[in-house]
């Protein structure tokens, strides 16, 4: 089966800056794919290039096996929700949602029918006659989603659609988004820098670094088996801890990587100096130093600052030259 979206050697350069660097990516049909990366790594540029607002310098984009690289956005059959929703301020909610259908040349009755249907599903049918400038953030986001969903395109791109909402609304909107994606059984490509969104939404996550895909996998994979030290550092609420191989009887060229959660403190062969501790809900996290390495360790008690704490590692990965060694 061909992939829904395939990017081959996609390169984008703005001025002197290489934003996308021979990027390769394949996204399957019906997948909720999250592109995760720190800001400034070309996430938005990637979406804009896929949808056709930006022309790539080189490389190809395939949708359902069809090369769309040279096509304008309106010929690509991809819809997109922009970060600021980009609702047309001169139109009502109804007109906003109807716009893509109007462009597709549908007649008035079927437009009305489809708009009402999608607006009912996303629970904004009561706002249809309002001007979009009067809506709340959450409502705007739903209108933008409706407008993207209503024409049933090959796939959807979403550029940090939740970043403009306040925390509480964001949480429910996230659940809603997941439900919608499953219900419509559509391919979503979702860009974010928020790990909790990646964790809760994605079937698969692609980590973007300097215009390249560093690792692809489920969030769990990225968390437990980060393929490089950079991913290990980026993923997770605390960066992964690294210590020298010989400390656990391994070769000198190897490093041992483990999460804060993968240790037991109070006993064990390893020792570190406590710098500080913090209480998160019911668990302590101990910031410790081992030589010149900084560690974060989960602990059931609060050790005194400056004291030595002993610990043992229950689970770990082995890294060589910054890359994981399969074991």
């Amino acid at each position: 089966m061909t992939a829904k979206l395939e990017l081959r050697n996609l390169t984008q350069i703005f001025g002197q800056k290489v934003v996308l660097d021979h990027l390769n990516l394949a996204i399957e049909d019906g997948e909720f794919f999250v592109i995760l990366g720190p800001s400034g790594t070309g996430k938005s540029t990637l979406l804009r290039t896929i949808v056709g607002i930006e022309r790539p310098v080189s490389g190809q984009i395939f949708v359902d096996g069809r090369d769309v690289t040279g096509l304008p956005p309106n010929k690509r059959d991809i819809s997109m929700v922009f970060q600021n929703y980009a609702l047309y301020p001169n139109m009502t909610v109804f007109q906003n949602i109807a716009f893509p259908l109007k462009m597709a040349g549908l007649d008035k009755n079927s437009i009305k029918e489809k708009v009402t249907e999608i607006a009912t599903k996303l629970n904004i049918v009561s706002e249809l006659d309002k001007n979009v400038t009067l809506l709340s953030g959450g409502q705007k986001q739903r209108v933008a989603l409706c407008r993207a969903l209503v024409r049933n395109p090959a796939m959807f791109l979403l550029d940090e659609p939740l970043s403009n909402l306040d925390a509480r609304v964001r949480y429910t909107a996230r659940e809603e988004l997941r439900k919608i994606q499953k219900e419509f059984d559509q391919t979503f490509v979702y860009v974010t820098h928020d790990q909790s969104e990646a964790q809760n939404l994605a079937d698969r996550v692609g980590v973007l670094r300097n215009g390249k895909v560093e690792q692809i996998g489920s969030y769990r994979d990225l968390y437990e088996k980060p393929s490089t030290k950079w991913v290990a550092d980026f993923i997770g609420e605390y960066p992964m801890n690294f210590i020298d191989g010989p400390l656990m009887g391994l070769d000198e060229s190897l490093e041992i990587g483990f999460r804060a959660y993968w240790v037991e403190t109070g006993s064990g062969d390893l020792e570190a100096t406590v710098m500080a501790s913090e209480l998160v809900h019911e668990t302590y996290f101990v910031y410790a130093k081992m030589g010149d390495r900084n560690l974060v360790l989960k602990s059931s008690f609060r050790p005194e600052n400056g004291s030595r704490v002993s610990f043992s590692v229950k689970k770990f990965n082995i890294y060589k030259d910054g890359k994981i060694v399969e074991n």
Partner: protein
Amino acid sequence: MQVREIGLYAVVFILAVIFVYPLYVLFLISFVPVTYTFGQIYPAQFPVALTLQNIITSFHTVSLVNPLIRSFEVALMVATLSLAMGIPAGYGLSKIKSGIANIIVVLLFFVNMMPGIVVAIPIAAEFIRVGLYDNLVGIALSQELVVLPLSVFIMLGGFRSIPKDLDNQARVDGAGLLTSLGRISIPLVVPAVIVTFLLSWMTSWDEFTYAVIISPGNPTFPVQLYNYVTRALPYEASAFALIVTIPVIILAAILQKYLKGEYLTGGLVG
């Protein structure tokens, strides 16, 4: 604080006198009997007596109706043309790098930096050849030289004030370039369109240099007015000048509502 306020009012007062006094003189000449104005070495500064006789005589002795109609037609042509060219030019410039766009806009204003006469004479020579001399279309085209840089500048400012993603969204939603322009971008720059139209209309309405050189045989209103003044018909001319100032004042009042900073300065903001 108070000193500053007094200073401000003083400046406003002086400016008002500079702009209003000529109008007041027109009013005096039009409505005060000739014996008190042109009949005196030092004409009265106050309406010592009022009469409608000057206006009535003016309508009997001179014909300014045809020049008025001509002026109206030309102004309409100029305003329409300046939109027809200013909108696409502004839209296009808003899509390219702002540094380059700004340079192009400055270059557009270059023609206006030269005295109108210098530009008008070669244009007149060319228009005689192609049959646009003594012709309303000819006047309109030449006046476009004055108007177009300004209208491009205003439209560029208008288009720059729209978030770029709206246009992108329209393209993603299936609109072609023209549809996106017509359905999304232009409706959002309606104030800029109105400003451009009115400003172009007003500029043409009282434009003199190009009008007198391109079309002396079919004069527009300002040109005919000038002819009457130089032919020693000053109070007929003043009466009509006063009448014709009225639409300009009304237009300016409408325009004021739309003269928000963003449409005029937007063009400069990178």
